[in-house]
């Protein structure tokens, strides 16, 4: 528990030209050997955090620590960090083998070992036999995998991956997700992974940092973040969700969509205005008589594993439902859900207050 964090950001800010603030006062810690994901919309500063850790840029203020030592000014070649770049950044004048071998050659490792390690890395990314190809002869997805091989072959303390799977097709992508996760666990290295894709983040990470506009909005395990989003932004960004305005009547009783419902949240002010999140898969279709909500089916899409229904209640709130059962468009149906399915979000709550409030009443159902 008291293990030294491998990376620590202490009030780190990054500004360009003194006026555009890209990161504002970010603080976090990362433990050795875990899989972290930075998740957030385009332009929120994910790559900037990776570049700070890799050492390509220096923070405008604040301190970055690696194993407890300040590294603000340590040049990138002296950091035990390797990066898989967003645009791959493969060397066009070197073939696949030499690209992957680049870091090993710098370290003056013997040819026989270079060969062994490069081949192993290429095997890992499913590119054995491509050693002598030129980079220009590789497809986008293949280049991405060369970039992954080029980073992991050096066996660094931290691997930074900037959307490393974005160019792969779904099947290869899923496969690589498994393999990266497996590799990370086998090597016991710290991975810091950047993605736009919330499903990827949820599937792979030990911990997720949800970012927006240069700030970390919420951090936690995938389950925590999915189940207890701190605000509308996170709820919306992580998975599909139904978000409606409501009022907290008292502890364990909330009012929304014109009715009162039992819930598990407590510790809020009486009659406090709040927002309520219910995940589409927590809504169950029943008959109108038995439903807690009565809605009309507007559209229905077949999504493979489930049907996605867009429904409206009488107040005009939209309710997205994921169900394995089919419904009839235009029909009136009932929606049922458990008290645990209701997630109450305070408006403008800070992450510290949010965590404190959750701890005060949370039942340890999914605590490790």
């Amino acid at each position: 528990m008291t293990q030294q964090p491998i990376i620590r950001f202490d009030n780190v800010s990054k500004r360009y030209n003194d006026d555009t603030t890209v990161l504002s006062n970010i603080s976090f810690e990362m433990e050795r050997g875990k899989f972290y994901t930075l998740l957030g919309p385009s332009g929120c500063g994910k790559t900037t955090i990776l570049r700070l850790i890799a050492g390509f840029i220096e923070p405008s203020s604040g301190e970055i620590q690696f194993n407890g030592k300040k590294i603000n000014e340590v040049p990138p070649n002296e950091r035990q960090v390797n990066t898989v770049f967003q645009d791959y950044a493969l060397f066009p004048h070197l073939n696949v083998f030499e690209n992957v071998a680049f870091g090993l050659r710098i370290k003056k490792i013997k040819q026989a070992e270079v060969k062994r390690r490069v081949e192993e890395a290429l095997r890992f990314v499913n590119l054995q036999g491509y050693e002598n190809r030129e980079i220009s002869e590789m497809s986008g997805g293949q280049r991405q995998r060369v970039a992954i091989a080029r980073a992991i072959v050096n066996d660094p303390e931290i691997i930074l991956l900037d959307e490393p799977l974005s160019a792969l097709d779904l099947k290869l992508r899923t496969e690589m997700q498994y393999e990266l996760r497996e590799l990370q666990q086998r090597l016991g290295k710290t991975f810091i992974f950047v993605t736009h894709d919330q499903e990827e983040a949820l599937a792979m990470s030990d911990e997720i940092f949800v970012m927006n506009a240069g700030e970390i909005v919420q951090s936690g395990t995938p389950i925590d973040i999915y189940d207890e989003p701190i605000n509308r932004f996170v709820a919306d960004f992580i998975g599909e969700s139904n978000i409606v305005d409501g009022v907290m009547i008292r502890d364990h009783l909330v009012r929304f969509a014109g009715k009162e419902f039992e819930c598990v949240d407590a510790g809020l002010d009486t009659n406090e205005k709040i927002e309520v999140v219910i995940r589409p898969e927590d809504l169950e279709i029943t008959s109108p008589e038995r439903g807690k909500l009565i809605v009309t089916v507007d559209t229905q899409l077949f999504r493979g594993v489930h049907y996605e229904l867009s429904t409206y209640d009488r107040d005009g709130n939209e309710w997205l439902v994921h169900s394995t059962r089919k419904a009839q468009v235009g029909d009136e149906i009932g929606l049922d859900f458990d008290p645990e399915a209701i997630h109450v979000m305070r408006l403008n709550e800070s992450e510290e207050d949010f965590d404190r409030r959750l701890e005060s009443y949370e039942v340890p159902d999914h605590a490790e």
Partner: protein
Amino acid sequence: MQNKSTKALYLIPYGAWILLFVVAPIALVVYYSLFDIHGDFTFSNYKAFFSSVYLELTLSSFWYAFLITLFSLLISYPTAYFLTKTKHKQLWLLLIIIPSWINLLLKTYAFIGIFGQYGPINAFFAAIGIGSTQLLFTDFSFIFVSVYIFIPFMILPIFNAIDRLNPALIDASRDLGASPWTTFRRVILPLTMNGVKSGIQVTFIPALSLFMITRLIAGNKVITLGTAIEQQFLVTQNWGMGSTIAVFLILFMFIIMLFTGQKEKGGASVGKTK
């Protein structure tokens, strides 16, 4: 059908130009090289070229051209590199390129004034007590002025090559443990080699046949293939020998073109992987 004939039409000016100003002169030069000073057909000019006098001349031409190219490169590469890092790089580049638009003869005369016995440099030398020094008509002044003349031509292709280099590649190299110097050697230089080659081409080849700067700045101290041709045509009136030297000059240029030619690998898309 029509397309083909219009295409042919467009080619006429080009073909005519090539024929009149490239093929015909070369043919003429080769033709003249086969006659001696009395107008008799002979190969003796070629034999004469392989005598020690002309070989030495060739060697000295190459040596000067080499020095001029080397110094131009040593100055241009770092300059081009820093130019790409500046904020208004196109403006700075323009400022460096502008002098190359000024007439060569004018610039050369300016240097005669600067290096001359009563020029500012000698005045400065006198002031700090070195005393007036012979600057004009020395190897130094010849190479100095030539390098000055060629620098813009060297900078331009190198600047373009460095500017096109994807900066993420430098990050990648540093990330993989390379120091700035190793990064330069293993990534930046190989990927800008085509620019360097172009620069060498546009410097070395004209430097081989310099004659005006040679005459005006170096006087009779430096004799190159260029001055030798001029001498044969205008002074000795030996057009045959002059043409023979020209034939060899063309040959040398051709060989240099072959050596500094661009290889396709990584060519057009220097450093951009996508």
